């Protein structure tokens, strides 16, 4: 086991994939010589050359369109979009092309490729370096979407994505790239342990980030990405008040782990769902419907969401806007005491 942060885990995964398969190509803005604005691709160009680690022109539609063409031809492209906020020039390529290639060609042209992109707030990035666009991608059938919350999953999910026969979007929570909390790095955190060898985390499988202790009112939290850590802290606080949290880290948003969701929700009967993105049609809305449809008979309280507000992402008031531990805690109390 090595100690890694998420950036190092991503870098390590790319390194392994490129080393074991000449057919893997990395492309994106500033990914080559510079190693990416978040340093996720550092060292790759020096080792694998400019033909396989490509500094592209500044054009997201070009990056994704070209990656699609490579994938159709049989080359495995791992594209980086510098911030998910800048993915929209490629939205047409992703939604109308990438997502539908296999289907629209009667299965003749599957399009296995990977898009990595940093998501989420908490880095003082204002409107355009903070958004969480996952629901805009899970909505379009044909795209696999995963969202790691720690270095182990970041590496394992990225390697699984590279192996996948489908197009996969890896949404990397940039706020926790270097540590689970501000000021505390992954080196001192159990989730910072990552095997050095190749391994995969299965797509479509959730993880239980915190198990029930059997003491207190049981409540399920369903979340993913950076919010796993916010919710984990809230769970610790809640334990002091007699609330016993099972924390489901979805890891995969499309497909999602229905069995894990149903197992937890039907066991606790009280469910909080958290996502950083705005509330309206956010991923939590889908999860809320899933829980209600599948677990209605077990529910003891209304399924409760903790989300960003339905406004653009602010700059100065970012930490008022971002769903924090206090808001999760309030939701936990509300569902735990609901009668």
């Amino acid at each position, binding site marked *: 086991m090595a100690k890694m942060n998420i950036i190092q885990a991503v870098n390590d995964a790319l390194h392994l994939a490129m080393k074991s398969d000449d057919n893997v190509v990395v492309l994106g803005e500033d990914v080559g*010589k510079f190693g990416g604005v978040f340093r996720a691709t550092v060292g790759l160009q020096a080792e694998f050359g400019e033909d396989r680690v490509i500094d592209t022109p500044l054009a*997201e539609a070009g990056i994704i369109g070209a990656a699609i063409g490579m994938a159709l031809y049989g080359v495995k492209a791992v594209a980086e979009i510098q911030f998910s906020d800048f993915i929209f020039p490629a939205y047409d390529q992703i939604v109308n092309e990438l997502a539908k290639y296999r289907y629209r060609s009667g299965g003749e042209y599957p399009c296995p490729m990977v898009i990595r992109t940093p998501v989420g707030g908490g880095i003082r990035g204002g409107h355009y370096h903070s958004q969480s666009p996952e629901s805009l991608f899970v909505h379009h059938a044909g795209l696999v979407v995963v969202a790691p919350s720690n270095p182990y999953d970041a590496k394992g999910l990225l390697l699984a994505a590279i192996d996948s026969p489908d197009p996969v979007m890896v949404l990397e929570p940039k706020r926790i790239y270097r540590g689970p909390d501000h000021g505390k790095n992954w080196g001192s955190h159990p989730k910072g342990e990552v095997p050095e060898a190749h391994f995969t985390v299965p797509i479509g499988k959730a993880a239980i980030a915190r198990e029930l202790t059997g003491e207190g009112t049981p409540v399920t939290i369903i979340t993913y990405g950076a919010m796993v850590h916010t919710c984990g802290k809230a769970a610790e606080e809640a334990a002091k008040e007699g609330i016993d949290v099972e924390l489901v880290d979805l890891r995969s948003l499309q497909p999602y782990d229905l069995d894990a969701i149903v197992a937890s929700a039907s066991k606790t009967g009280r469910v909080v769902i958290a996502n950083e993105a705005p509330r309206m049609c956010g991923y939590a809305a889908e999860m809320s419907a899933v829980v209600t449809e599948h677990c209605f008979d077990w529910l003891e309280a209304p399924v409760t969401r903790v989300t960003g507000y339905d406004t653009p992402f602010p*700059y100065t008031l970012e930490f008022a806007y971002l769903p924090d*531990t*206090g808001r999760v805690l309030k939701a936990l109390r509300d569902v735990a005491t609901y009668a």
Partner: protein
Amino acid sequence: MSDNLGTTAPHVSVEPVSVMAPDGTVLDQDFVDTIPEADLVALYEAMLAQRVYDDRMIKMQRQGRLGFYLACTGEEACSYGPAYALQAQDWFYPAYREPGIALWRGMPFQAWIDNMVGNCDDPVKGRQMPVHWTARAQNIVSISSPVGTQIPQCVGSAYAAKLRGDDAVSICFFGEGTSSEGDFHVGLNFAGVWKAPAIFFCRNNGYAISTPYEKTTAAKHIALRAHGYGIRGVVVDGNDILAVIKVVREAAEWGRAGHGATLIEAKTYRIAAHSTSDDPTSYRTREEEAHWGERCPLKRLRAYLETKGLWDEAREQACITASSERVISALGVAEGKPHPDLDTVFDDVFAERPAHLQAQYSELKAHLASGQSAYKPK
């Protein structure tokens, strides 16, 4: 100027327009004579002040007093020049590296600084990152981070002015890296078809973050692309503020005369790092930076002013001191102001706040009142 009415396409010229050599020697005295000496001095003072502001602001960011900053060091002529060349009724769509447009056209200095801090008097109400200001009173449109989006918008404003019969041109700014985005091509094409009085001002500063020009395009000049869209194209020495003023004036005349758009490629160099998040040492050499440092737009205008007896070391130092004091004091004032009100998170999403946003606002207010929020009001 060639005419755009017959079968010939508007002229594309890649011979860089220059008015002054890098050492300040005048190459086009006739043009220099069109600009009053007092204006030359004022432009120099403004660019020098800008350099001081940029230096100070970067230091402040390093001290943790600003969240972010992005300097225009080396490219001052590319915003002060166009700002000087155009008129009050003209419309501006800056990218993020053209502070001269704000400050020359009269955006209040304190408001510009308040934007850097994101306080309650920030014109954008603390919603965007620093360097994303807005100045409606000066016809300067709100800055976006996604690059290139302003280019077709500029064409729309240019067309709208034409439709209304107004004598206004619209100018947009962007880096050469941005010329790879679809919006650039779409914008130029619309402008060509509509003969819109638009000016596309491309600052070719050599890099898009770490990506050098050769990785942006295989074409020798960005200006060549004008040809494919049937609009005028010119190359200018972007470190020669007088040349910049000259080509922008010509482009504006061309547009006001009903001939349509011009793509201007200003050859310059980003002496600064891309932003405070960047470290250029890993992708370019100190020699290259020094080479361009010698060709910077301030040195050249200063050399000319000195030969004319309009500037000297004493004035230089006085201007540096005054600018430094000005920016430090404005930053102090800005830091002393409170954060924007909580309302600003929910206002301006729509003209009126819908019920669900009102409910979310109440929820957030209660959360803050409970003392459980991660946010500490100021």
